[in-house]
């Protein structure tokens, strides 16, 4: 009885910890996905090449 009660407290805490963990993992995945999309959509023909301006 004594240990079961303590276990219920831990169950509530575990629910919160798992939820926060999943949210953080989803956030990492989101940032990674956004980075891939943003980088792959850059038009590199418009990006000035280093040293090109100086030579022109």
């Amino acid at each position, binding site marked *: 009885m*004594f240990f079961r*009660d*303590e276990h*219920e*407290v831990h169950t*509530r805490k575990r*629910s*919160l910890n*798992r*939820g*926060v963990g999943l949210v953080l993992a989803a956030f990492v995945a*989101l940032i990674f*996905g*956004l980075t891939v*999309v*943003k980088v792959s*959509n850059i038009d590199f023909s418009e990006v000035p090449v280093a040293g090109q301006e100086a030579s022109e």
Partner: protein
Amino acid sequence: MTDASINTQVQDGDAQFGDFVALLKPRVMSLVVFTAAVGLIAAPGHVHPFVAFCAILFIALGGGASGALNMWYDADIDAVMKRTSRRPIPTGRVTPGDALALGLALSGFSVVMLGLAANWLAAALLAFTIFFYAVIYTMWLKRWTPQNIVIGGAAGAFPPMIGWAVATGGVSVESVLMFALTFMWTPPHFWALALFMNSDYEKAGVPMLTVTHGRKSTRRHVFVYTLLLAPVALAIGFTPIGGLVYLTVAVILNALFIKGAWDILRRDETTAEADTYGVEKRFFALSLLYLFLHFGAILAEAALKPWGLGGW
């Protein structure tokens, strides 16, 4: 060690993950997601699907953040009203400090992330929406004036405008009209609710129109605002995001809505009490369908366009 040393009761702040989700008002968030998505999809211009998904998510989180700030500030009112007394703060599952921290953190996070993912105009509109709902409506208007719902309704009306700004980087007639549709819809929607929930607002000391001006005046207000809403709803039909589908839906729904408001106007309290506010409850249910179907029709017009249908 005795049993008294272990307390297995739910303590203040002993929240589960779901309690923090409840702070974000998921049902309001679903409306925010839907209207913002319609604004984004109906807008001209292309947005990468993943960026669009992220933008909608950040708009929803911003809406959730303002919900958490609202629950933090209004905990005293929520505790008194039956409809809101089971919320996480009045029941003690989440502490006010935790709710405030979550609201502020999510506000900053959602605005910055929307700016980075989409553009800074959309982010600025989201920041203004959060400020408007949490400060202008919750902290100022709600406890001060019976017009709280009218002006405060602007906060709930911004999401389609933000969605539009994500796609276009600007504001246009169409996005302003989508804003106006939700803005004008809010008063009759909430006043119909107040007509059959009046005792709760009275108990909480919220100056709802039914409390300050009486039910007869509220019935008149519902009718007048429903009449003013109709031209706004129909006007969208004549813009590039409208079309035959939208206009048909708008004509039918506005006719039904005006008929419902007319029925509310004609009733007295004795009749309303006799059928436990059946007409008012049906009008409230219709109001939910009204907004959903208007934005659904805009979405349908946008979906038909690739096939050469939809629009004018």
